[in-house]
Protein backbone atom coordinates (compact mmCIF):
# COMPACT_ATOMS: atom_id res chain seq x y z
CA UNK A 1 0.00 0.00 0.00
CA UNK A 2 0.90 3.63 0.03
CA UNK A 3 2.95 5.16 2.77
CA UNK A 4 2.32 8.57 4.21
CA UNK A 5 4.58 9.71 6.98
CA UNK A 6 5.14 12.72 9.15
CA UNK A 7 8.60 14.01 9.98
CA UNK A 8 7.90 14.88 13.61
CA UNK A 9 5.50 13.05 15.91
CA UNK A 10 5.22 15.99 18.35
CA UNK A 11 5.49 19.74 18.06
CA UNK A 12 5.29 22.40 20.77
CA UNK A 13 4.92 26.07 19.94
CA UNK A 14 4.32 29.26 21.85
CA UNK A 15 0.94 30.88 21.51
CA UNK A 16 1.08 33.47 18.76
CA UNK A 17 3.95 31.80 16.89
CA UNK A 18 3.55 30.13 13.52
CA UNK A 19 3.46 26.33 13.31
CA UNK A 20 4.69 24.16 10.48
CA UNK A 21 3.72 20.51 10.27
CA UNK A 22 5.34 18.37 7.61
CA UNK A 23 4.30 15.26 5.74
CA UNK A 24 6.01 13.01 3.22
CA UNK A 25 4.13 10.84 0.75
CA UNK A 26 5.28 8.12 -1.57
CA UNK A 27 2.82 7.85 -4.46
CA UNK A 28 3.61 10.38 -7.16
CA UNK A 29 0.28 9.50 -8.81
CA UNK A 30 -1.79 10.77 -5.88
CA UNK A 31 -3.98 13.61 -7.08
CA UNK A 32 -5.45 15.02 -3.91
CA UNK A 33 -4.21 15.78 -0.39
CA UNK A 34 -6.06 16.76 2.75
CA UNK A 35 -5.05 17.91 6.19
CA UNK A 36 -7.22 16.81 9.09
CA UNK A 37 -7.30 17.98 12.71
CA UNK A 38 -8.26 15.59 15.46
CA UNK A 39 -9.00 16.85 18.94
CA UNK A 40 -8.90 14.48 21.87
CA UNK A 41 -11.89 12.13 21.90
CA UNK A 42 -13.25 13.36 18.59
CA UNK A 43 -13.19 12.33 14.98
CA UNK A 44 -10.87 13.97 12.44
CA UNK A 45 -12.09 17.22 10.94
CA UNK A 46 -11.22 18.66 7.57
CA UNK A 47 -8.88 21.66 7.62
CA UNK A 48 -7.75 22.29 4.08
CA UNK A 49 -7.12 20.39 0.87
CA UNK A 50 -4.99 20.77 -2.21
CA UNK A 51 -5.01 19.11 -5.61
CA UNK A 52 -1.89 17.86 -7.28
CA UNK A 53 -2.05 20.58 -9.97
CA UNK A 54 -1.49 23.25 -7.30
CA UNK A 55 1.51 24.03 -5.11
CA UNK A 56 -0.09 26.32 -2.56
CA UNK A 57 -3.50 26.93 -1.09
CA UNK A 58 -4.52 29.31 1.67
CA UNK A 59 -7.38 29.22 4.10
CA UNK A 60 -8.16 31.13 7.23
CA UNK A 61 -4.85 31.15 9.19
CA UNK A 62 -3.74 27.98 7.41
CA UNK A 63 -1.67 27.40 4.30
CA UNK A 64 -0.87 24.11 2.64
CA UNK A 65 2.20 23.76 0.45
CA UNK A 66 2.75 20.90 -1.94
CA UNK A 67 6.14 20.04 -3.38
CA UNK A 68 5.64 17.24 -5.87
CA UNK A 69 9.31 17.09 -6.76
CA UNK A 70 10.24 15.80 -3.31
CA UNK A 71 6.77 14.46 -2.46
CA UNK A 72 6.36 16.72 0.51
CA UNK A 73 3.33 18.40 2.02
CA UNK A 74 3.27 20.96 4.79
CA UNK A 75 0.64 22.71 6.86
CA UNK A 76 1.38 26.17 8.16
CA UNK A 77 -0.74 27.63 10.93
CA UNK A 78 -0.38 31.35 11.52
CA UNK A 79 -0.61 32.90 14.99
CA UNK A 80 -1.14 29.55 16.68
CA UNK A 81 -3.80 29.55 19.38
CA UNK A 82 -4.48 27.16 22.29
CA UNK A 83 -7.47 25.83 20.38
CA UNK A 84 -5.09 24.59 17.70
CA UNK A 85 -3.70 21.96 20.07
CA UNK A 86 -4.59 18.63 18.46
CA UNK A 87 -3.23 15.84 16.32
CA UNK A 88 -2.85 16.73 12.66
CA UNK A 89 -3.02 14.12 9.91
CA UNK A 90 -2.20 14.41 6.28
CA UNK A 91 -4.06 12.17 3.88
CA UNK A 92 -2.99 11.18 0.42
CA UNK A 93 -5.81 10.29 -1.92
CA UNK A 94 -5.86 8.40 -5.16
CA UNK A 95 -9.27 8.97 -6.70
CA UNK A 96 -10.35 5.85 -8.50
CA UNK A 97 -13.30 4.65 -10.48
CA UNK A 98 -15.75 2.54 -8.49
CA UNK A 99 -13.13 1.72 -5.89
CA UNK A 100 -13.89 4.48 -3.45
CA UNK A 101 -11.47 7.32 -3.03
CA UNK A 102 -8.52 5.51 -1.47
CA UNK A 103 -7.25 7.52 1.47
CA UNK A 104 -3.88 6.85 3.06
CA UNK A 105 -3.28 8.53 6.39
CA UNK A 106 -0.10 9.38 8.20
CA UNK A 107 0.29 8.54 11.90
CA UNK A 108 -0.22 12.17 12.90
CA UNK A 109 1.70 15.00 14.55
CA UNK A 110 0.64 16.11 18.00
CA UNK A 111 0.68 19.90 18.24
CA UNK A 112 0.79 21.48 21.70
CA UNK A 113 0.36 25.23 22.04
CA UNK A 114 2.03 26.71 25.11
CA UNK A 115 0.13 29.72 26.51
Amino acid at each position, binding site marked *: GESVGLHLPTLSVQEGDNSIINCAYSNSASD*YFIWYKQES*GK*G*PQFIIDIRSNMDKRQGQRVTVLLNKTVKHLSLQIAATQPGDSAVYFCAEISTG*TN*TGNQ*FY*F*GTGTSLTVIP
Partner: protein
Amino acid sequence: NAGVTQTPKFRVLKTGQSMTLLCAQDMNHEYMYWYRQDPGMGLRLIHYSVGEGTTAKGEVPDGYNVSRLKKQNFLLGLESAAPSQTSVYFCASSTGQGGTGELFFGEGSRLTVL
Protein backbone atom coordinates in the same frame (compact mmCIF):
# COMPACT_ATOMS: atom_id res chain seq x y z
CA ASN B 1 -27.80 18.41 10.30
CA ALA B 2 -26.26 15.53 12.30
CA GLY B 3 -23.62 14.51 9.70
CA VAL B 4 -22.17 11.11 10.59
CA THR B 5 -23.45 9.41 13.71
CA GLN B 6 -21.96 6.30 15.28
CA THR B 7 -23.51 4.06 17.91
CA PRO B 8 -22.56 2.92 20.45
CA LYS B 9 -19.80 5.30 21.53
CA PHE B 10 -18.33 2.88 24.04
CA ARG B 11 -18.52 -0.88 24.43
CA VAL B 12 -16.72 -3.55 26.42
CA LEU B 13 -16.83 -7.13 25.14
CA LYS B 14 -15.47 -10.44 26.28
CA THR B 15 -13.41 -12.51 23.88
CA GLY B 16 -15.68 -14.45 21.55
CA GLN B 17 -18.69 -12.17 21.87
CA SER B 18 -20.24 -10.53 18.84
CA MET B 19 -21.44 -7.01 18.26
CA THR B 20 -22.43 -4.53 15.56
CA LEU B 21 -21.43 -0.91 15.21
CA LEU B 22 -23.91 1.28 13.41
CA CYS B 23 -23.01 4.26 11.26
CA ALA B 24 -25.64 6.61 9.89
CA GLN B 25 -25.15 9.63 7.62
CA ASP B 26 -27.75 12.17 6.55
CA MET B 27 -25.79 13.83 3.75
CA ASN B 28 -26.89 11.47 0.98
CA HIS B 29 -23.28 10.39 0.47
CA GLU B 30 -22.51 7.51 -1.84
CA TYR B 31 -19.28 6.34 -0.21
CA MET B 32 -18.94 5.11 3.35
CA TYR B 33 -15.93 3.76 5.21
CA TRP B 34 -14.97 2.05 8.44
CA TYR B 35 -11.53 2.78 9.92
CA ARG B 36 -9.80 1.70 13.06
CA GLN B 37 -7.35 3.92 14.89
CA ASP B 38 -4.62 2.51 17.10
CA PRO B 39 -1.79 4.39 18.86
CA GLY B 40 1.10 5.02 16.49
CA MET B 41 -0.70 3.36 13.58
CA GLY B 42 -2.83 6.13 12.15
CA LEU B 43 -6.17 5.36 10.55
CA ARG B 44 -6.44 2.02 8.80
CA LEU B 45 -9.26 1.15 6.43
CA ILE B 46 -11.27 -1.95 7.37
CA HIS B 47 -14.05 -2.02 4.76
CA TYR B 48 -15.74 0.49 2.53
CA SER B 49 -18.78 0.86 0.33
CA VAL B 50 -19.23 2.80 -2.90
CA GLY B 51 -23.00 2.56 -2.86
CA GLU B 52 -26.06 0.87 -1.45
CA GLY B 53 -25.73 -2.89 -1.61
CA THR B 54 -21.99 -2.86 -2.26
CA THR B 55 -19.06 -3.48 0.07
CA ALA B 56 -15.34 -4.00 -0.40
CA LYS B 57 -12.34 -4.93 1.71
CA GLY B 58 -9.84 -2.38 2.88
CA GLU B 59 -6.42 -2.75 4.39
CA VAL B 60 -7.35 -4.74 7.53
CA PRO B 61 -10.65 -6.58 6.87
CA ASP B 62 -10.02 -9.84 8.75
CA GLY B 63 -12.38 -10.49 11.65
CA TYR B 64 -14.93 -7.93 10.45
CA ASN B 65 -17.99 -7.96 8.23
CA VAL B 66 -20.03 -5.09 6.87
CA SER B 67 -23.37 -4.45 5.25
CA ARG B 68 -24.87 -1.51 3.37
CA LEU B 69 -28.54 -2.38 3.00
CA LYS B 70 -29.57 1.26 3.02
CA LYS B 71 -27.65 4.14 1.52
CA GLN B 72 -27.57 6.06 4.78
CA ASN B 73 -26.37 3.18 6.98
CA PHE B 74 -23.14 1.21 7.10
CA LEU B 75 -22.86 -1.54 9.69
CA LEU B 76 -19.63 -3.05 11.00
CA GLY B 77 -19.88 -6.47 12.63
CA LEU B 78 -17.52 -8.47 14.78
CA GLU B 79 -18.62 -12.10 14.86
CA SER B 80 -16.13 -13.30 17.47
CA ALA B 81 -14.30 -10.45 19.17
CA ALA B 82 -10.59 -10.75 19.96
CA PRO B 83 -8.39 -8.56 22.17
CA SER B 84 -6.54 -7.43 19.03
CA GLN B 85 -9.75 -5.70 17.98
CA THR B 86 -9.56 -3.32 20.93
CA SER B 87 -9.44 0.02 19.16
CA VAL B 88 -11.28 3.20 18.33
CA TYR B 89 -13.47 2.78 15.27
CA PHE B 90 -14.37 5.65 12.99
CA CYS B 91 -17.00 5.72 10.31
CA ALA B 92 -16.69 8.22 7.49
CA SER B 93 -18.59 9.18 4.38
CA SER B 94 -17.89 11.12 1.21
CA THR B 95 -19.74 12.24 -1.88
CA GLY B 96 -17.88 9.86 -4.15
CA GLN B 97 -16.70 10.34 -7.69
CA GLY B 98 -16.80 13.91 -8.90
CA GLY B 99 -16.98 15.28 -5.38
CA THR B 100 -14.23 16.97 -3.40
CA GLY B 101 -13.27 13.65 -1.87
CA GLU B 102 -13.39 15.10 1.64
CA LEU B 103 -14.18 12.54 4.30
CA PHE B 104 -16.70 13.40 6.98
CA PHE B 105 -16.02 11.46 10.17
CA GLY B 106 -18.16 10.36 13.06
CA GLU B 107 -17.10 10.89 16.65
CA GLY B 108 -15.73 7.37 17.04
CA SER B 109 -16.67 4.20 18.91
CA ARG B 110 -14.26 2.94 21.55
CA LEU B 111 -14.27 -0.84 21.79
CA THR B 112 -12.46 -2.83 24.46
CA VAL B 113 -12.21 -6.61 24.19
CA LEU B 114 -11.21 -8.38 27.38
